[in-house]
């Protein structure tokens, strides 16, 4: 919560849309505003999230973003995983709100919060934080990288 002023800087979304975003803001007062869907992305190619609210296909990523995402995938793959063994400490994945079943593939974050691997990996590609405690997961990982 804050002082509610708009950031006046250009954001990634308007850069992507080019001239569309100009038309969008100037026609806003007339009639129903034209709600815009994100850019169409080919269903076949994977999409990435350089930041949580930005979705891009590989072709739309800048070189810098590609490096960032490659690093991120590397980091995520270093997080411990395992199969749920029925342990009572972790029972439910807060992302899908479904109880763990014996044999589910899990991922353990450094803060000891546990999620389905498929659920948390989807989030970590957007933000390297634990959804439950907001603890950044990359700091702990980087230290373990260096000591190994």
């Amino acid at each position, binding site marked *: *919560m*804050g*002082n*509610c*002023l*708009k*950031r006046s*800087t250009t*954001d990634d*979304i308007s850069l992507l849309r080019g001239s569309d975003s100009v038309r*969008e*803001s100037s026609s*806003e*007062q007339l009639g*129903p*505003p034209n*709600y815009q869907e994100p850019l169409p992305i080919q269903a076949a190619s994977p999409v990435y999230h350089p930041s*949580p*609210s930005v979705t891009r296909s590989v072709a739309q990523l800048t070189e810098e973003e590609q490096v960032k995402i490659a690093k991120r995938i590397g980091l995520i793959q270093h997080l411990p995983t395992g199969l749920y063994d029925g342990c009572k400490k972790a029972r439910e994945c*807060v*992302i*899908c*709100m*479904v109880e763990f079943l014996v044999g589910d593939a899990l991922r353990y974050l450094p803060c000891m919060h546990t999620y389905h691997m498929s*659920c948390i990996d*989807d*989030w970590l590609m*957007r933000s390297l*934080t634990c*959804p*439950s405690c*907001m603890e950044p997961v990359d700091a702990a990982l980087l230290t373990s990288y260096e000591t190994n």
Partner: protein
Amino acid sequence: MAGLSPSERRLQKELMSLMKEPPPGVEVDFDLAEQNLLHWIINMEGAAGTLYEGERFQLQFKFSNKYPFDSPEVTFVGNNIPVHPHIYSNGHICLSILTDDWSPALSVQSVCLSIVSMLSSCKEKQRPPDNAFYVKTCNKNPKKTKWWYHDDSV
């Protein structure tokens, strides 16, 4: 619950738990939500002992098929938009958990509770200082607004 997408399955669970244990002053329009799990209307009552006591508000939640990875689009709708320093007269709400600080561990219930507490802690009913300009120039979708939150370091 066959045939539902992962986001609809989670919304179905949230709907069930709100039906069983609704937080005080918060009431979901279940019929509407059941028709379309991606669009909810929530009736909210101003809490007793606050500036909004006796008032009734309507909140609209729109979810994308990326929920809960994507935050819901939450706005006040209807003819009574709370007069509050973080709520614009078009219903847009300046609340960081709705954009930058969203986490998939949050839920409809936690968003409602944040909004209730934001209303309850209000000392003086007034619109944000840039209300007139914002309402004229903003995108229809509040998630497209780049809000400045006071802890923002960008």
